């Protein structure tokens, strides 16, 4: 007869409360009518209306979304190639260097990644005149570079459990490499590509440190704007932004979980 481990249950309950109380409090206070963040002044949607009227903020949000979409797409394409090469080309020249360069960004402090990329862009501007100004392009390049590493991790774990015989069969039947790649390999990798893309998108949308280094005048991403606002003090409209993001993320994650759960059950049958 096993005792019910009450101590363990308490810690676990505390852990989940610890994870969700901050999120919940932000959501609740986003509907607070009072300007004072700590006083409850009744229910109101005024901070959401405030957001819609804030051009600077909307601009930053659109810039961030654009950078995230482009960098996630490029990072997923390049990352998938690296993952495939590392998985299948055991005798690739410079394989060790490649695997080192693709793992290092995972553990490199962001602040150093940002600083070093800024130095690169400055040096390049001196030598070849490009990039003349820093902004959306340089941020996108930086985001591609670090999020690629995460895509590789996701795709490689999928490749490890994948059956290669389908591709071999297609090759035997005379399929051209590119056709086989897009007709067989890509669809088989699709779940990993989708989660890799979402991860890269999230990382890009969330990045403050690297963007702050490689950005220039006129290019302020959403995290940079939020950081500047928070440093000046807590403002209720950030609660509203946070709530919108939280709602989108929860909807996305729950949908993804339900979909993959259904797929798993389908394959079991």
């Amino acid at each position, binding site marked *: 007869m096993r005792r019910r481990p009450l101590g*363990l249950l308490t810690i676990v309950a505390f852990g989940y409360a610890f994870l969700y109380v901050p999120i919940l409090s932000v959501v609740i206070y986003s509907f607070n009518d009072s300007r004072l963040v700590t006083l409850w002044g009744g229910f109101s949607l005024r901070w959401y209306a405030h957001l819609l009227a804030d051009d600077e903020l909307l601009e930053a949000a659109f810039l961030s979304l654009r950078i995230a979409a482009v960098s996630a797409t490029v990072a997923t394409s390049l990352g998938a190639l690296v993952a495939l090469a590392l998985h299948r080309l055991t005798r690739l020249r410079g394989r060790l260097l490649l695997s080192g360069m693709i793992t290092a960004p995972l*553990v490199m402090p962001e602040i*150093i990644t940002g600083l*070093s990329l800024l130095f690169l862009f400055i040096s390049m501007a*001196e030598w070849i005149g490009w990039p003349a100004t820093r902004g959306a392009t340089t941020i996108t390049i930086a985001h591609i570079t670090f999020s690629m590493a995460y895509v590789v991790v996701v795709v490689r774990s999928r490749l490890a459990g994948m059956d290669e015989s389908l591709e071999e069969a297609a090759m035997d039947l005379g399929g051209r490499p590119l056709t086989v790649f897009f007709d067989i390999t890509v669809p088989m990798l699709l779940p990993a590509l989708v989660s890799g893309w979402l991860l890269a998108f999230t990382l890009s949308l969330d990045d403050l440190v690297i963007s702050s280094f490689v950005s220039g005048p006129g290019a302020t991403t959403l995290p940079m704007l939020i950081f500047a606002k928070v440093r000046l003090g807590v403002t209720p409209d950030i609660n509203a932004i946070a709530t919108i993001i939280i709602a989108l993320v929860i909807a996305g994650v729950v949908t993804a979980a339900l979909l993959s759960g259904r797929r798993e059950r389908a394959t079991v049958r």
Partner: protein
Amino acid sequence: MSEDTTTRGGDPRRWLSRAVTLPYVWLLLFFLAPFLIILKISFAEPIVAQPPFTPLLEWGERGFEGLRTTFENYAFLFQDGYYGIIYLASLKMAAIGTLLCLLLGYPMAYFIARQPSRRRQVLLLAVILPFWISFLLRVYAWIGLLNNRGVINNVLMSLGVIDEPLTMLYNDFAVYIGIVYSYLPFMILPLYANLERLDVDLLDAAADLGAKRWQAFLDVTLPLSMPGIVGGCLLVFIPAVGEFTIPALLGGADTLMIGRVLWDEFFVSRDWPVASAVSIVLVLLLVAPIMWFQHVQSREQEAGR
């Protein structure tokens, strides 16, 4: 056309090895080169110019004339006790944050791993979900909670537990909370992956042989989950050492962490050579834990097969 097919690329591996050149060059240019540049600038002298450092290679009329290096930036780091203290303080704060993370994460991972499959997935999802919500906003959320007139103080005061608000924000305590909160999923996932594989028969055997629950835990579960503990701890510790956002938003003026000092060195003092030297030393400090992590990872992968 079928002949064309066989000659142009009967071997998809050749096609792949050509295609991978693109990301390869990308990484050389945007990951390796920047790092070499930082290394180079860390050996340069600061000057008042744009960019504010001397060139490493001297190019004269007859081309390359010499290499100009100075170890002054590094000498400065070691002579000036300030940086030594900050490195140690960052390592200490990251270590304490990691330990707290482990103390909370282990019981959670242990509990989740022992649930029926369906519930396990939901609980695990609940751990991962906050990770997808903006890191910056999650750190921000704590400002509203820990404030002198924040949610926690309000609740405690209205319950009569305390008379005066506790100072919980803008100090090391808040930074620890921030580290544990931000990195808890990174601790729980490797621990869970390890504990889930744990052979329950071993625990039953220990119980049959008369071991008490805590004895079985200490002698069987804990040693077997060591790879998970090490993996989780390093996943938290490595990014925590160079953390900027958490000390910048939750820390006090006296919370010295290297990421924040580096930021100020760059954006405020504009001493790029010293900022570069600070970065290089930080990377060197992290090499050992990173190598250890790689080692644990490859062993875990073998165990998983």
